[in-house]
């Protein structure tokens, strides 16, 4: 077999295999290097497979040589390719930028364990994205969740522990709900392969268990995706995680759950359940609207940069869910495009928090005042990324907002409500972003501020600035040239509505 044929398998296996190597590294720099190399490899593979699927093809792989539904099949289509790029890209960039931050927040000897868990989280997320098997999704979901608990719990503040425990309990409930749903489906169809399920559900006349299964799966995944009001675990988990972890997890983790949810609801249930479309729509749309507003309000009231960003995520996830809840092609395209654009903006936001904390130890506003004078480039990058969060034209965030509003316009009267909520929350985003901009540029440095608490090594800093520049640049680049992600998003939306896997 040609190595290219193994692409889907390699995508998961490379980071997976690198994880055990990581703990065998005695030196923390080596462990970091292993993680960087593995992430880099995963990222290149993701880009490669994106090239293969961009013309509408799908890459499939039968694990162990057993064809589905008897074996486990892997599958990369436009949607999953986009997700793999987001995930591996977030991991690579966060790792590259975070070398100094990891040294600041983590004990050296724990770093091999930490980076090993990091790679497992990466492999888990990639595994969920690529597999086409309902139970395999569960297994990899657990790898990624357990690994995420570990790397979040590495946060130096004791509040991280409470946050992780909450995350663990809610995450496990979510996963178990998912398992119940899959069990009910399996009971009625006898198969676990997603495509096969969709096919065989056609013949199932008893819809009640399927209906309940849809409920359990959707709610379980919504829990993992931090969809309002199931988001309670998320702000603290993001806030108290080590900065390097926030940058990674916030960019991609919840999106993977949303991805699975959208696949199930649109590909499996939609064609086979009567009225599923409306139920999905009426269930999620109000929640999304409330999430968009409440997340933005809390963010606007925050006094800490990371907390602000975490709550802004609640609101931004609302956008994705809102787009999906329109259940139209335009709506889904906007949702999927926003996954990508939000990853850019939010990953970048947490990178800023990371850089700020390098110099001022915490991300509390009182500490960050006047950052712009001492570190003009970090502040400038925040302006760009903040604009993307608001959705200023010329940035990536604008593209998704445009798509969402266009999609809402198709809805008639309901669209007006949606647009007004989106507009209102954009204004709130202006408030919370500009609060920080003013803080950076106009507030005076606190007297005797704890400046330069750790010795920052030159190469690490250079790497950080490079990555930050790259992310900020990408926010602009994809605001002006969104062709590639948009094309993938459009394809993905068509595939979702086409009902074929």
């Amino acid at each position, binding site marked *: 077999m040609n190595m290219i044929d193994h692409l889907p398998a390699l995508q998961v296996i490379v980071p997976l295999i690198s994880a055990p190597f990581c703990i065998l590294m005695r030196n923390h720099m080596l462990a970091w290097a292993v993680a960087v190399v593995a992430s880099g490899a995963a990222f290149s593979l993701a880009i490669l497979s994106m090239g293969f699927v961009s013309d509408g093809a799908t890459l499939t792989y039968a694990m162990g040589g057993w064809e589905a539904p008897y074996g486990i099949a892997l599958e990369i289509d436009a949607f999953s390719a986009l997700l793999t790029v987001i995930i591996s890209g977030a991991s690579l960039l966060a790792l590259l930028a975070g070398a100094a931050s990891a040294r600041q927040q983590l004990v050296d000897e724990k770093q091999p364990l930490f980076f090993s868990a990091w790679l497992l989280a990466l492999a888990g997320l990639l595994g969920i994205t690529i597999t086409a098997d309902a*139970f395999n999704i*569960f*297994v990899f979901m*657990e790898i990624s969740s*357990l690994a995420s*608990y*570990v790397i979040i*719990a590495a946060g130096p503040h*004791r*509040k991280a*522990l*409470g946050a*992780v*425990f909450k995350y*663990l*309990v809610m995450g*496990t*409930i979510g996963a*178990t709900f998912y*398992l*119940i749903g899959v*069990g009910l489906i*399996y*009971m009625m169809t006898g198969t*676990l392969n997603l495509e096969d399920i969709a096919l065989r559900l056609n013949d199932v006349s008893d819809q009640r268990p399927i209906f309940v299964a849809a409920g359990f799966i959707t709610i379980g995944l919504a829990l993992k995706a931090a969809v309002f009001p199931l988001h309670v675990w998320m702000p603290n988990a993001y806030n108290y995680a080590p900065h390097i972890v926030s940058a990674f997890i916030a960019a991609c983790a919840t999106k993977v759950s949303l991805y699975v949810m959208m696949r199930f609801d649109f590909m499996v249930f939609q064609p086979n359940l009567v009225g599923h479309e409306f139920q999905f729509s009426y269930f999620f749309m109000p929640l999304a609207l409330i999430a968009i507003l409440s997340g933005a309000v809390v963010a606007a009231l925050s006094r800490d940069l990371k907390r602000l960003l975490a709550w802004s995520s609640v609101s931004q996830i609302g956008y994705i869910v809102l787009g999906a809840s329109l259940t139209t092609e335009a709506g889904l395209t906007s949702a999927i495009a926003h996954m990508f654009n939000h990853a850019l903006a939010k990953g970048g936001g947490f990178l800023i928090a990371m850089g700020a904390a390098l110099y001022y130890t915490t991300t509390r506003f009182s500490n960050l005042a006047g950052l712009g004078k001492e570190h003009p480039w970090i502040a400038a990058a925040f302006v760009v990324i903040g604009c993307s969060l608001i959705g200023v034209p010329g940035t990536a965030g604008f593209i998704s907002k445009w798509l969402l509003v266009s999609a809402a316009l198709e809805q008639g009267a309901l669209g007006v409500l949606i647009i007004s909520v989106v507009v209102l929350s954009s204004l709130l985003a202006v408030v919370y972003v500009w609060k920080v901009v003013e803080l950076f540029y106009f507030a005076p440095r606190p007297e005797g501020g704890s400046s330069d608490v750790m010795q920052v090594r030159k190469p690490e800093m250079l790497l950080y600035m490079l990555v930050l520049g790259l992310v900020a640049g990408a926010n602009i680049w994809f605001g002006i040239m969104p062709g590639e992600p948009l094309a993938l998003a459009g394809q993905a939306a068509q595939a979702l509505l086409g009902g074929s896997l």
Partner: protein
Amino acid sequence: MVWLDLYHYWVFAILLMIGYFSVIAKRNLVKKLIGLSLFQSAVFLLYITMGKVDGGTAPIIGMTDKTDIFSNPLPQVLILTAIVVGISTTALGLSIVVRIKEAYGSIEEDVIHQKDQVE
């Protein structure tokens, strides 16, 4: 009788409820974890139950003379995996509880919450 045909399912539902309730309602972190594993055990029962075939045997060829009817092996495979996942989660959860106890001196959620507020 439909009700009785499904009695394993009812046991599953009841166990699930007990576990679920204690996860949400209990304030003691260890209790929450115990509830969580109960919650998961219930799901194991759901899967294993659905794999049973009347008059079947364990899916091992040659164990008994009746080689023609086996219970469904697939749910068993899934649950083997799920059990392992469950214990892994529990172990991780417990280690976090240990650290919480050391950091806060308590494993009662309300006490921890109060101490966080004071800060």
